[in-house]
């Protein structure tokens, strides 16, 4: 890639596991370089001492390696041809197809002016009641699954992506196992959806630091389709915890003082820069949107760890999966899951009784959890407790389980039928205007 005019440096002063330092002049911050062909990026300049982060790792780099600065930040060529293609973290094809021809755009570009955004208002239907009924997704939203590594989050995400009515699905895989990569590829191709898919993949076989590029690559492609083609784009990022781990590796190699859980002090800003790319544009800007569904894997369900904690403050809610032992199925946990944007659509794009019915059902489900604790502690159960327990079992099986596929009106009707089956009118605490209509309805 070197041209006749580019200076080649051949004297590296310092090598760590992730970075190299050398003396160089006229180098720009964030600029890319190659070191014996390996891609690296400028992360620190002090006088003429330049520190580079080497994406593939520094193994095998000699002190006399050839260093060439490329004069540009990491970038991606964008165009319609991206559709249906699989790329590595650098945006190079890994599916054997041709190179992309198109406009070269620097990744990690500027943020959208908040006054040029539109308030999200379009429901994204998934058919899963744990999501549509209790935690409705809205286009332009950003929301992660908080899940333990053994939970079927990739399966649920693939299901959501295929059911959602979107123009493009962009998958950013970070530290994904090869098996999961094939799972996504097969699921999407079996569904005949490959032409809507674009994937940027960093698997566990690839160097860890490379995955720092993946979210920005995926979102740069997403911005192309949302801004220039006015499309609705769904971006899937899995797994953001691997991404954060790579951030901490680099900051550690640069001798930065770590803050909580050995994560860099800038973790919040680093994650926010990615998630805030989710946006709904107004009609005047073409009406495109970017919705982000991500995965943050937890260790032993601990959400106070810096990665899920900072994520929770950035994203618009979070979804939890849990195995319900009463029905033996995986459900979307109604207690801890939350979609912050649901009130923008529930009762507005769905039936008016939506939020009251949802809240009442969750409250009764929570009463059931209390009854269960009572039972486990060996206390007698009241009639109300027993009814709650029966309700909870049926509610979990008919609505919360991830294999449910209903539209929201059906979900509401099912919930009303369960209310009537197990409770008295005054026990559900729903506004009279709704009980007048739905309580006596057959």
């Amino acid at each position: 890639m070197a041209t006749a005019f580019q200076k080649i440096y051949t004297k590296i002063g310092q090598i760590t596991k992730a970075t190299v330092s050398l003396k160089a002049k006229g180098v720009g911050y964030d600029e890319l370089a190659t070191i014996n062909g390996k891609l690296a990026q400028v992360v620190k300049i002090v006088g003429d001492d330049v520190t580079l982060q080497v994406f593939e790792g520094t193994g095998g780099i000699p002190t006399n390696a050839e260093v060439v600065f490329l004069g540009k930040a990491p970038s991606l060529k964008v165009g319609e041809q991206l559709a249906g293609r699989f790329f590595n973290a650098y945006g190079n094809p890994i599916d054997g197809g041709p190179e992309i021809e198109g406009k070269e755009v620097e990744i990690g570009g500027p943020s959208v002016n908040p006054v040029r955004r539109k308030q999200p208002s379009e429901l994204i239907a998934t058919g899963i009641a744990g999501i549509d009924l209790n935690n409705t997704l809205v286009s332009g939203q950003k929301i992660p699954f908080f899940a333990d590594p053994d939970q079927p989050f990739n399966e649920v995400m693939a299901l959501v992506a295929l059911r959602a009515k979107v123009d493009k699905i962009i998958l950013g895989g970070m530290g994904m196992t090869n098996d999961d990569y094939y799972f996504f590829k097969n699921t999407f191709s079996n569904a005949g959806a490959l032409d809507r898919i674009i994937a940027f993949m960093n698997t566990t076989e690839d160097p860890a630091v490379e995955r720092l590029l993946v979210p920005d690559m995926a979102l740069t492609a997403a911005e192309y389709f949302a801004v220039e083609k006015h499309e609705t784009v769904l971006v899937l990022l899995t797994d953001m915890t691997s991404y954060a781990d790579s951030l901490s590796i680099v900051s550690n190699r640069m001798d930065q003082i770590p803050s909580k859980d050995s994560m860099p002090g800038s973790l919040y800003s680093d994650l926010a820069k990615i998630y805030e790319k989710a946006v709904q544009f107004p009609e005047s800007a073409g009406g495109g949107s970017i919705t982000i569904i991500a995965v943050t894997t937890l260790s032993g369900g601990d959400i106070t760890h810096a990665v899920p904690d900072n994520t929770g403050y950035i994203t618009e809610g979070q979804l939890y999966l849990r195995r319900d032992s009463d029905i033996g199925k995986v459900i979307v946990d109604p207690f801890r899951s939350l979609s912050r944007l649901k009130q923008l659509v529930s009762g507005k794009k769905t039936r008016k009784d939506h939020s009251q019915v949802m809240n009442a059902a969750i409250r009764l489900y929570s009463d059931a959890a209390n009854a269960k604790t009572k039972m486990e502690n060996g206390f007698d159960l009241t009639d109300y407790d027993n009814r709650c327990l029966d309700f909870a079992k049926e509610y979990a099986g008919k609505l919360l389980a991830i294999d449910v596929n209903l539209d929201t009106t059906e979900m509401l009707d099912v919930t009303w039928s369960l209310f009537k089956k197990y409770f008295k009118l005054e026990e559900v605490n729903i506004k009279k205007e709704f009980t007048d209509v739905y309580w006596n309805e057959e």
Partner: protein
Amino acid sequence: MTKGTVSGVIANMVTLAVDGPVKQGEICYIETGGDKLMSEVIKVVGNDVYVQVFESTRGLKVGAPAEFTGHMLEVQLGPGMLSKNYDGLQNDLDKMEGVFLKRGQYTEPLDKEREWDFEPLAKVGDEVEASAWLGEVEENSQKLKIMAPFQMEGKAKVKSIVKAGKYKIHDVVAVLEKADGTEVKVDMVQHWPVKFAMTNYKEKPRPFKLLETGVRTIDTFNPIVEGGTGFIPGPFGTGKTVLQHAISKQAEADIVIIAACGERANEVVEIFTEFPELDDPHTGRKLMERTIIIANTSNMPVAAREASVYTAMTMAEYYRSMGLRVLLMADSTSRWAQALREMSNRMEELPGPDAFPMDLGALISNFYGRAGYVYLNNGEIGSITFIGTVSPAGGNLKEPVTENTKKVARCFYGLEQDRADKKRYPAVNPIDSYSKYLEYPEFAEYISKKINDKWIPKVLELKTRMQRGKEIAEQINILGDDGVPVDYHIVFWKSEIIDFVLLQQDAFDEVDAVTSIERQEAILDLVTEICETDFHFEHFEECVDYFRKLINLCKQMNYSQFQSEQYNDFVSQIKAMLAA
């Protein structure tokens, strides 16, 4: 002016070699690729000046030129700021071109061409000092004062003042003459360095006037006052932002300034989508007319995040100098603290607790100290009520930002995960939360006059009942429903009445979202009446059924228009149940 050249770059921290004097906090512009990047001096070591850049430093090279401005980070204050959306550096976001924020794009905060109807207040010959009211203009039906320059030292006489009429912000509206004969020309614009507090008032007494927010758990249980300070810590998902928005919609203030500091862009979008449509419950005008938004969302440059809260506070002080009641909300002060941490980390300072800078506590207390209820030099009254949210890492309140804030804020509204999980909103913990103002004799006296002298004793009584209810709930959990006397259940369910009827409130219901003080008085009386009623039940299940039914009726009452037929009907049903 002093010039410099870039000698090092680490993310948004840049070192410059300079050729002359610079001051701490001075603003400079670094030129790269045709863009000018605004930066602020944060440390000087010999000839090396460390600056934090308010923009992305991508592509910045060693040797790039920088020019210093001689002044610190300051804002322009004048008519035309209401209903504006600014970024943290007071750029008018609506004036910026394109969908994306371009680096190095700065826009005028005020409109130079707009004409204002100026009315003089001072006369020729009047003796005035800094911040004296010379005239006024009207913006969105709010009378804004045109004041003598804030930085003016000593006294001066009004030499001339223009007649009532239409003027632009930079037209000279008055000329002042100081004792030494120097003239001071006054236009409608003031400049003020944001990091310095304005102290242009005579006295800052203890605040005592209730600030109505329409949120029952605040107004009735833990009231905040005009010129008071409060903070809302809570883990994510417990409703910090919903509560803050409810307060900013409903509070009885003349001006509301919302600093969205490192938070979600969609939350800001929600404000400027909804506020232009919503009515101010006190004046009937559109909410947006009294609101200013300072948006530094989490993806905007980190250094400007710190600036944003100071920009917002300085604007609040400007309006307070005019005798207005200002409500300032900052969401979230933890993000501001994190911005400080990022910089401190890059400067390789020795870290304090949780890697925050050592002076975090001092910064927070100085900032909260700028709020307050003041008597201005002309005897008029102005106030800044400040409510900040805190986002404690992992929801753990034993962390530096929460602890340092607790030392200075007088009201504490602790949001609780457990309440949020149970959908008991607002999730303000009724037992741990407090308002120090309830203990102020000045406040008690004010409430006796405004409402009645039974109010505070009733509130304190209910607080005790909540505490007792919680203790009994724990006992029931241990001993079982049958293991405690039925009377215990009655005490517990009375506390549930307080919780469900008074404390819980549906922020998304048209009627329930905002409760007038008059209506809060009615609820307080009703709940007190229920609590003071003697009940006798044979069995605890009978008690549970009774109270469930009562709660349901009270909730229906809360959802009905105050004193409507439907409302009165529910009230009489409740009274009938109590009498039975």
